[in-house]
């Protein structure tokens, strides 16, 4: 049994599916999360490595402040890998150097006024659970505060976007209110 941020992830669920338990994580986001931590499609929760679980937990606790993903090099067809006698630490040091050089290069480009295009990480703006609920509540409160039609309709527990109200509108009557959560 694995608990991540207070959510119980059942052992026999696929990891990709179990992640959708978080409010704000759907199948697509769960797939992205799995890709980020190299969790394959058929991986069950019980098969997750401790490293994967801790990194998942630390990422989900604050996605916005997660460290950027390193861009590891990929072997071209004629690549010859270094001999096994070369220690991995040496290779890592070399990679770190190249990363630093890249950072400098980017800084230089930015100074020239032509900043390099940054990859926009969609997971960076991920909000889950109470954070997402707060956001939704704030949005509704904002609408009400500025006195907009949307805000008023929310306050009246009625549909917001011009739907019929003579019949139906059940979901709106149930959910549309100023403090939804």
């Amino acid at each position: 049994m694995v608990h991540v941020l207070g959510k119980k992830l059942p052992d026999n669920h696929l990891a990709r599916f179990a992640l959708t338990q978080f409010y704000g994580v759907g199948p697509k986001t769960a797939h992205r999360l799995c890709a980020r931590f190299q969790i394959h499609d058929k991986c069950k929760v019980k098969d997750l490595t401790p490293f994967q679980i801790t990194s998942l937990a630390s990422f989900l606790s604050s996605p916005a402040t997660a460290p950027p993903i390193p861009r590891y090099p990929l072997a071209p067809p004629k690549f010859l890998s270094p001999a096994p006698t070369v220690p991995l630490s040496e290779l890592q040091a070399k990679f770190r150097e190249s990363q630093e050089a890249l950072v400098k290069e980017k800084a230089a480009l930015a100074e020239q006024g032509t900043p390099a295009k940054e990859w926009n990480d969609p997971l960076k703006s991920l909000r889950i659970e109470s954070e997402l609920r707060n956001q939704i509540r704030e949005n509704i409160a904002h609408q009400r505060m500025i006195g907009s039609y949307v805000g008023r309709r929310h306050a009246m527990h009625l549909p917001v976007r011009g739907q019929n109200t003579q019949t139906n509108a059940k979901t709106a009557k149930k959910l549309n209110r100023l403090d939804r959560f």
Partner: protein
Amino acid sequence: MSSSILSAATSGAASCSQRSLVASRLLVHQTRGAAQKAPAVKVAQSIGGVKKGQKDKWERKIGREYTHRQHDIPVFTRMSEDKLKLPKTDKSPAVLPEQFQPMSTSLNLPLFEPKAITRKNVGTAAGFDLTPTNPAKVFGLPKKMFLEFRILSTPCSVIRDVTVETKNKLEKAKDSSSKDSRIVLTGRAGCGKSFLLHQAVQYAKSEGWIVLYIPRAKTLINSTTTYTYDLRTQTYLQPQASYRIVEKLLTVNSDALSTLTLSAPFTLGGDQDKSKLQVFKEGTKLSEVAQACVKDKSYQSACGTLEVLMRELEGQTKFPVLMAIDDFQSLFHDTAYRDPFFRPIKSHHLSLPRLILEYASGKRNFAKGAFLSALTASDTQYAIPLELQDTLELGHRHPVSPYVQRSETLLQYASGLDAKAGGLQNLKVPEKFSVEEAQALFEVWKDDLALTNSRHDETFMAKYVESDGNPRDFVWKGVLASYAPS
């Protein structure tokens, strides 16, 4: 007695009608008694699979049944205990009657042996041997073939013209580098490419080759096993899949691997914990190295071990090596694995597909041996890509737009990374069975009681024509579809 009742019933008089009704009732009653008297042989009732404490309960039930039987028509006899066992526990599982047990009816086919693959024997069916270390049992089979063998009482295949041709090619390849024999079996869906590949594997195994057979290459790229990035090889390693390949390679070729030795020292678990390192000196048997890897259930050492095993197999000249890959076209697709940026990982950036592609492209070669692969034409998810269609000159089913992009890298892999070695050779598998070949197959299914109604020549010709001689259609849509409940 019945004739008197009949006469009474047919008299037609109104006054007689009541009497006849009584009589007919009597008839029923009396015939009941007659029917019951006939099978009055009482067999001692055994209490099959009954828990000890419930014996007398059962006896009471049977006693009730016995008294009940004297008044009622159905004559119930219990199945004897040796015929049926209830699946009470794991220790005494259900036992099928003998005639339903696998391998109970064997087809008496000749064995598929190298010496049997001759021009003379074209059009005869031959069964595969079923020892537990047979490559088919260890590496598995392509799905369609697996399903067919599950129905057949003896796994077998028909020796075709192209089988003999392939055998000759492998015989030549035995003494030359695998660079010279990198073959792709092509042909329309269901024409027998996978069967031919499997025949080649069986041939090579019984000729003493070292065999690495991957019947479903799709499983290497469909995101079903673990993957991790490795800075040394700059690819994504597949520890779990590598472990399975090492395990299977060892099981099938344990004899050959135990005669080969390491040419350079090797450290198992290279980049892992220093406490878990295991050093093998030069001259250690390859089987020992593989066994050590199989023992490590964390899969961490599998990728390194597979790499070393392949390097050693490349260098040695004692045994020819056959690498046989089914579903080969799937390796020319984007994989279902995703990198941290959510881009699909290219198959040449995954360790195992890359290993296969390197042998296919001639970048790596066995000193003696061959690379043999088959395309799967019926897979719509992993269709044959343009790069392969172009280099193998397969032709296109529909005209291709000139604006469709080809991947440079995949073209390189298809047409050979080594310019001298050239590209993959195309071996076309004939589209149709010859009549003799189809006949052999028909006879196999007929002997296996797959044909329920007619077993005449007309049926054979009808099925042959209906399927246009296509082997898969001949079996699945012809022979096996002939069952019509009457």
